[in-house]
């Protein structure tokens, strides 16, 4: 895939530049909600992530004792 090198670079830049100093937990659920509120660009990321995985986020909390994706 053509995109792979770019994503790899982006990943390492991101890990090296930002993760080190992030003292605040942005919240996994909150990060995913941002996609819903992010207009067209958010929808595009949702498609890439896979709708199936994404909709698990909002399933009944009863089923959430363990992570659905594990």
């Amino acid at each position, binding site marked *: 895939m053509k995109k792979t090198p770019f994503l790899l670079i982006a*990943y390492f830049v991101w890990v090296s530049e930002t993760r080190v100093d992030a003292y605040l937990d942005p919240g996994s*659920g909150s990060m995913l909600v941002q996609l819903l509120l992010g207009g067209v660009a958010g929808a595009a990321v949702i498609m890439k992530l896979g709708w199936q995985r994404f909709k698990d986020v909002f399933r009944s909390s009863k089923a959430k004792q363990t992570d659905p994706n594990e």
Partner: protein
Amino acid sequence: MSEIALGAEAHGAKVTLEPGSFRDRTARVFYHDGKIFRGLNETALKEWQALSATNFYRRLSATGAIVATEQRDLASLPATSEQWAGVLEHERLPFVSYPYEWSFEMLRDAALLQLDLVLAGLDEGIGLKDASAYNLQWKGASPVFVDVASFYKRAEGEPWVGYRQFCQMFLYPLLVQAYRDVPFQPWMRGNIDGMDAEVCLNLLSARDYARGGVLAHVYLQAKAQKAYNATTRDVRKDLSKAGFDKRIIKANAERLRALVAGLQWKPKQTTWSDYLKCGHYEASDAEQKRAFVREAVHTRDWTLAWDIGCNVGVFSRIAADRAKYVVAMDADHLAIDKLYQALKSERVANILPLIVNVTDPSPNLGWRNLERKRLDERGRPDLVLALALIHHVVIGGNIPMAEFVEWLKGLGGDLVIEFVTRKDPMVVTLLRNKEDHYADYNEDVFERELGARFRIAKRQPLGSGTRIMYHAQLAH
């Protein structure tokens, strides 16, 4: 001990760490020689160097939205126990305040500034590490962002790290106030991290789900947080790989901005609005009172004045003629909200309105009870106005007269105080449904207690005969 001494001495002044500045380990606020500094580690120094070169930073510090900051030579400061790579000096703001002392409009304006910083930063690749309401302070009626170490060079693929915190510290408190008329201040005072999505959801009713922001920011976020609470997946990595970009943050922040700007708090009637209708003063009394306060205020210049029980701020404004800064306090949320709006529209820079109940003032809070300081540790006044207040404190609040006067003395300033006698209709109203246990509430006891602690420079009964004004000075 409220500050941690680092043991280093220079020019006779110690370096003391700010005990509330520890969450972000890359930088820490400390004090030296009456000035305020921020030590930066190597990473934070690089971030600062990049930030200070941007138009974003130049523009927003020029407008005063970001606190005035200069880099200083490390060698000019005494060594501290931590090895900093660089040090910044910040402009010292006249009085520190906390979100649980702000009115609805104040929290809203602080929220809008926070969002504006997020949006403005995006274009220049700058992100914010957090979105704490404690990163904002006030210069009169203007919010100022004080934590320059919050800014960092945002990498593509990075989500808005502070979104959840923004909701907890700004959006949810504003929503419950606007939609449910639930005061947010006790929640903010009760939890240093603000209000959880789940708690906010519980406070809202079913019909609120149809109102702006509730479904997405509250309901879905509460659900998502629950679902992903124990996940072992690296969601940040997943998002980055899937191409999360700044347009998502922009769309979200812009919608949030419109939501916050459109929120309205329509309060039920409060003591304050009753007060305006009743008009407790005859016109001549009101004029005499203003003249008395004006004369006392004009005896000299003042650094910091407190107007306790300021109501709509008539006397705070008189104090502001000769005081560098006035903190105008009242327990009534609506009174402070109205005062704030007036001061904001007039661009008054030296009066800070705060919600304070003097019989239950803000305590020390947070880690080791040192993160947020009690009210009187944030700056002692050299002038105190306590007008039409004492009956609320002694009769309404059941505080013994002698203790109240002793507390006023402890503040350490000149005192302009109004004694409201038992003949006054307000006192009659306060006693109407109470057993009269207030033998200490009379003019003789008041004068005795005042005279034991202050020198009474001037005493003047108002024309109606039910109120007496005093200008009392500390006997040195």
